[in-house]
């Protein structure tokens, strides 16, 4: 098991290397640079800045320099947030984003599983249609609509919850962003669970469990639900990516100091190191998450276990 994890991590290194390389050069192909502001800087100042940040050196040297720094865990200084290194920015923003994402994911799994299971158990009833209808709604309405609407209703009109801001992670501040982020995921998880559960309830081994007089609660919870969760586990990888993208919108609209907002800002202002840093962090996150998903899947389904 440990060997498997190490192998997976080792296998991820070439992937990460490729991602870093491609994004490094892609970023440089885009016209402009971090110091090309609306009002051009003096030539002397520009030269100095370029020298300090090694931008005057040939591209391949900059690339090697970046790689070697990266190997030492140094993501470099931010070009735009002059007083911070990329590492500092992430140290502050990452915990916030992770909290947000993890809460949304937990909520989505919990509610999605319950709703999906109920819909499957009461197939073709009013409840079933309601869940499926709401789920379709949740998938179709984009977060940049949901976020302002929620903020307006609960924040501005009713005044029950803060309309935005992080408030140092106060519970009330988290509710709206987490719901916005979780909504489409709840819908997707509910639909996946419903479909898989209906199939599982019709399967031969569930018939066996019923034939042996096991209580309905055991038949559903032990024999049907575990099979129904498998497709959701497979979906966790893409879900994590979706949460990351979703966090860009949500963090921007609610004004939350996570790393989501750096995605756009850094790219627009050609903050090379910050863009690279974001790419590296996100890639590592996706790789780690997919490994966890695979381990979880193997734990749940002995048929895909490795030696």
């Amino acid at each position, binding site marked *: 098991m440990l060997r*498997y994890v190490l*192998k997976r991590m080792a*296998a991820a290194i070439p992937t990460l290397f490729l991602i870093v390389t491609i994004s490094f050069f892609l970023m440089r192909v885009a016209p402009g640079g971090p110091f090309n502001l609306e009002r051009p800087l003096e030539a002397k100042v520009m030269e100095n800045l370029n020298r300090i940040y090694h931008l005057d050196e040939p591209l391949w040297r900059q690339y090697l320099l970046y790689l070697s720094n990266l190997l030492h865990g140094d993501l470099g200084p931010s070009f735009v947030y002059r007083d911070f290194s990329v590492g500092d920015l992430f140290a502050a923003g990452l915990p916030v984003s992770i909290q947000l994402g993890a809460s949304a994911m937990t909520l989505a799994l919990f509610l999605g599983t319950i709703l999906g299971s109920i819909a499957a158990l009461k197939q073709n009833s009013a409840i079933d249609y309601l869940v499926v209808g709401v789920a379709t709604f949740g998938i179709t309405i984009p977060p940049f609509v949901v976020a302002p609407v929620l903020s307006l209703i609960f924040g501005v009109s009713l005044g029950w919850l803060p309309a935005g801001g992080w408030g140092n992670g106060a519970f009330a501040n988290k509710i709206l962003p987490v719901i916005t982020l979780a909504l489409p995921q709840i819908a997707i998880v509910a639909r996946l669970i419903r479909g898989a559960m209906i199939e599982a309830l019709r*399967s*031969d*081994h*569930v*018939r*066996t*469990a*019923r*034939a*042996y*007089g*096991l*209580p*309905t609660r*055991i038949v559903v919870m*032990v*024999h049907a639900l*575990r*099979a129904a969760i498998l497709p959701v586990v497979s979906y966790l990888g893409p879900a994590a990516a979706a949460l990351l993208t979703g966090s860009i919108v949500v963090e921007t609209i609610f004004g939350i100091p996570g790393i989501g907002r750096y995605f756009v800002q850094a790219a627009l202002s050609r903050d090379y190191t910050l863009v690279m840093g974001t790419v590296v962090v996100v890639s590592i996150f996706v790789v780690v998450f997919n490994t966890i998903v695979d381990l979880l899947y193997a734990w*749940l*389904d*002995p*048929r895909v276990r*490795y*030696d």
Partner: protein
Amino acid sequence: MERAARNETPTGDGDIDPAGTVLSVRDLKVSFALADGTVEAVRGVDFSVASGETVAIVGESGSGKSQTVMALMGLLASNGRASGEALYRGEDLLRLSPRKLNRIRGDKITMIFQEPMSSLDPLYRIGRQIAEPMIFHRGVSARAARARVLELLKLVQIPDAERRIDAYPHELSGGQRQRVMIAMALANDPDILIADEPTTALDVTIQAEMLRLLKELQERLGMAVVFITHDLGIVRRFADRVYVMQAGKVVEEGRVDAIFAAPKDAYTKMLLAAEPEGTKPPVPASAPVVLEGRGVSVSFHIGGGLFSGDPFELKAVDRITLRVRQGQTVGIVGESGSGKSTLGRALLRLIPSRGEIAFEGRDIAGLDLRRERPLRRQMQIVFQDPYGSLSPRLTVGQIVTEGLLVHEPQLGRRERERRAAEALREVQLDPAMQSRYPHEFSGGQRQRIAIARAMILKPRLVVLDEPTSALDRSVQKEIIELLRKLQRDNDLTYLFISHDLAVVRALSDWVMVMKDGKVVEEGPTEEVFAEPAQEYTRRLMAAAFLTQREGEAPAG
């Protein structure tokens, strides 16, 4: 265990001790509500089971035999409804609350199913699954349950039970899984064990072992067995009394020896006579060779990935040489995994193989796709599963004429339809059925459609890959007659792949017996069946109850 005395007379011939009746079913009806009305699957069935006896319910698919027991166990699909009365020791199973029914099923009445591959939960160890009913019904502690499970696994003769108890279902073979199901069924020492076609999905030799085991266990433990099957060979060997079902009704009942000696009902007579008959005379040695294979091998590479074990080569077909002459039917028999289907596909060049393959003297092994295409017309195949091999989205006419679109693209629509009608008439289907879809047809009719699809191209050679295995015996017989007629009329050559020795014997004039990718024995059909040289062939035959054909009583 105390057997409650009930004063009901079994509906059998009356020579079973009436005091021992454990299950008595009266006027059982099962119907299913469908979008376009209700379907009556069971229309008033009476039967009874005395303690310790073996009752067989026999019938073909659609006779309602399975639904009868599903109704007793409360396992009908959600649109199914059962009425009538099913008394188990005075309690009517059909009217019990789910909670009360759960106290009986899995404890007093247990069941094993046809599909050993899917009847166990793939996500849990078998030890846990066998223990579950004990824990819930008897309140046994987990530790005591484990000890009992071990005992049960030994009882059903699972080798190395101490280790297997922690195995997952996918780590066991089909036969072993069925043994696990039997262990689970025996766990609570039931009064009645219902076995719904428990051996149908297994290889013949394993089938025989399984029946022996069941018989032995029954004698030791004294439970009653209700055996649902379509196989009269099993009934004869295994059961005390039999109920013959047709179209939801019991048409005949009585002691097994009485029914086999003097069947009264026409349907029973038909079932008994449904064993395929006839033989095929050999073709003259001067007949031209249609297909010749020399050293044909197919191997699959398994493993060798990043996380799977060391790679190895599985030889599915291992250097096989064969020669098929014009008008001949070569039967290829063997159990699942013997490589017989793979061989058939390799000879048709549907999968890559090594070795030489010549069709009418021309080497075809090295042909590319384009040059191979004209040959496809000469070499057709009919598959085992008439449900899976016809596209559900095409009409019968489209399915049958698809090959013409490729091989005779110049034909107009009208001409294609004419040919389709002709092909359908040849397989004795109504040509007016062209515009209908496969799901409107029965298994036997679908297999006729599949045959028509092959015949419309006027092939020289047809590979028949278990074409009758998914069909009831009586339908099988009709398909065999049809295949015979088509062979006579069109001077066809057949390669007949089957695990069913009775059918192979009736249809082929040359037999090859395959095991582990190799041919272990071959020769003219009559000789091989009269005097099998190999132990393996003999075992296959004994297991297939072939002795029956001579009218001898089979041992057992």
